[in-house]
């Protein structure tokens, strides 16, 4: 699964820390997601989408073969 959290953050101009605080996880978790090292739970994905005021599919997409 790929995501464009980093891009969305740049558009909204918010730091990893601020995003982490607003969805209730540690900054390392946001970092790991941006690097593709961690696939978030549905709950966290929904919270991130809410934070960016968009839908989950806009931020998280399946990759080929998934």
């Amino acid at each position: 699964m790929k995501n464009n959290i980093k891009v969305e953050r740049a558009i909204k101009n918010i730091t990893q820390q601020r995003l982490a605080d607003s969805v209730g996880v540690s900054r390392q978790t946001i970092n790991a997601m941006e690097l593709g090292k961690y696939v978030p739970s549905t709950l966290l994905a929904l919270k991130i989408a809410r934070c960016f005021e968009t839908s989950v599919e806009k931020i998280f997409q399946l990759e080929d073969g998934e």
Partner: protein
Amino acid sequence: MTKNYLFPARFQKFGWFLLVPFGLMFLLFAFGPDSIKERWPIPVFALVDQVLFQKTSWFSFTSNCVFDEVTLIGLIVSLLLIAFSKEKDEDEFISQIRLNSLVWALLINYGILILAELFVYGFPFLNVLYFNLIMILVLFVIKFRIELYKLKTNAGNEK
């Protein structure tokens, strides 16, 4: 996600604090002279008791030095508090690292036990069993701490 069995984060510091005296006592009982295990015996209740080559007795009172019992219980409690207190920033990613570290610790622990079973015979095997009492927790704490450290350093500083 909704339920876990972890202790509150503040218990972890308490666990590290207890680890020092109980850890030292544990090592003293492992490597120290046997005579320290017989100092100051007190009467204790025994659910089951057996002196070597004698009849097993149930629900009896016996005489025993309780330092080794206190040490082992103290050490287990302190390791449990360290291992299973929440991190200050516990979230789902850290929970996943916790789970992976626990699986790793279990596999390594039983790997070591199998090797010891194959290659250690006679009396030294009792020492293997003695350390095996706390091995899973020790391995887990070490692995989990290393993984958390790597996570925090890899995440680096934000631009």
